[in-house]
């Protein structure tokens, strides 16, 4: 799922400079799960903003709301239709898609991102999110035992590893990070499919998804 992280408070406050009445909106889906932008985080951020403003002697009225999925038009309008008009700016704790949906629906209001959307990932353990998928549009996982070389290899190699692997199979750029190709080697070895790693892979089609991407799906 989509992983995001809250921006530093200072950065958020700089974005909000000059506004006296704002709406802080969380999202009930991905960012709730990764503890970045759900109901609790909306509460916490709003509290921090009020405390900070009070400390500086500034006026700030903060309204709070949560939309089930900020990237769905109907859900946003249902929850915020009556709240948005009364504020000067909207601070979104949604991922980049959520921020942009809200910006489109409330065009006259500045919609500001409180989060940095970082990657598609999963929990390695509670609270620790790791990147898994690069959304490259040309999935290679059948050939690498289910380990993505595009994002989990620091150089995105299809014919790995590089010559910089550290002792013990760690990555050149980070001694705490496993070399993805060593992981792939061990995985394919377990499955008796090392022939897949011996194969030569042609250069990647980096235009498999022409950005900005668009997909028309058929409803079953």
């Amino acid at each position: 799922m989509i992983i995001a992280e809250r921006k530093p408070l200072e950065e958020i406050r700089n974005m909000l400079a000059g506004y006296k009445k704002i709406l802080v909106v969380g999202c009930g889906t991905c960012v709730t799960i990764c503890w970045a932008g759900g109901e609790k985080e909306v509460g916490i951020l709003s509290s921090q903003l009020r405390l900070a403003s009070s400390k500086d002697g500034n006026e700030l009225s903060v309204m709070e709301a949560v939309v089930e999925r900020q990237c769905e038009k109907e859900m946003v309008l249902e929850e915020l239709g009556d709240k948005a008009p009364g504020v000067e700016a909207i601070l979104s704790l949604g991922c980049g898609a959520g921020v942009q949906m809200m910006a489109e629906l409330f065009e006259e209001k500045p919609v500001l991102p409180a989060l940095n959307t970082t990657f598609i990932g999963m929990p390695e353990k509670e609270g620790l999110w790791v990147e898994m998928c690069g959304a490259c549009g040309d999935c290679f996982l059948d050939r690498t035992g289910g380990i993505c070389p595009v994002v989990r290899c620091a150089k995105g190699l299809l014919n790995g590893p590089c010559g910089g692997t550290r002792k013990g199979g760690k990555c050149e750029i980070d001694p705490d990070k496993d070399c993805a190709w060593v992981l792939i080697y061990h995985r394919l070895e377990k499955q008796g499919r090392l022939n897949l790693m011996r194969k030569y892979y042609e250069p990647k089609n980096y235009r498999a998804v022409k950005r900005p991407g668009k997909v028309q799906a058929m409803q079953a």
Partner: protein
Amino acid sequence: MAKHFRETLKTKDFIVTAEAGPGKGSNTEKLVEHIELLKDKVDGLNVTDNQSAVMRYPSLGTCLLIKEHGGEPILQITCRDRNRLAIQADLLFAYSRGINNVLCLTGDAIDTGDHKEAKPVFDLDSVQLIHLVHTLNSGKDMAGNELEGGVDFCIGASATPSADPIEPQLMKFQKKLDAGVGFIQTQAVYDMDELKRFMENFHKMDNIDGVKILAGIVPIWGAKMARYMNENVPGIYVPQYLIDEIDQAPKETKAAKGIEMAGRLIRQIKEEKICDGVHIMAIGREERVPAILEAAGI
């Protein structure tokens, strides 16, 4: 005029290449000094390509300088900073100016360098790059278009004998051999047993006919440098006993000790015919290479 490297590979018993590392800036004075110093003492002179992801005067430009001064350049190309279009274009230019040798590398990660916020390219990897050069050599570009004026490069690649684990590296190495290379310059070796094991593995592999292996020699000038390299430089591992040896040398004779140690390694490789030659990477101390060669008896 220097002899074509391709010819040298076929005919010479023990091949020696070295590296000229460009500096940061448009001033090529020191670079030309190094080129003048080394060009006649080695069979080929590599030029690094933004080595360690530190922005420097380009490999391509330096190879031109080497040509101008009568040396035999080996152009190092990494996949980190250029996409497939830029690489093909650079190769066309290189060939048009008499640069015939190319070393195909993946490239050190951006994080190791001084422009840590730059966008890494890695449109290709080193194996794909070797294939690309072959494609150009055959008169076509990567998209299948005919070239107006072809190229004919002698292709090299790298290998890492001290990799741990070694099996994935050997699989990658086989892919490079399958793609077709004329020479291999390895990452730094210090342990002759390790090099011998690597060569044993090499001789069991496919597509090794005519491929020359040059062992990488990185001289160490001090314990601090060796420890730094162990921590920070990808693919290099200096064993403790060598760190101790250089550490014990008094300050005034450290340079001589480093030269002696490097010379000793080269001499052993030559005398025991462990592989086909050496590639000396003196990183910033190119002026000491002639002394190293002397110490090695070359």
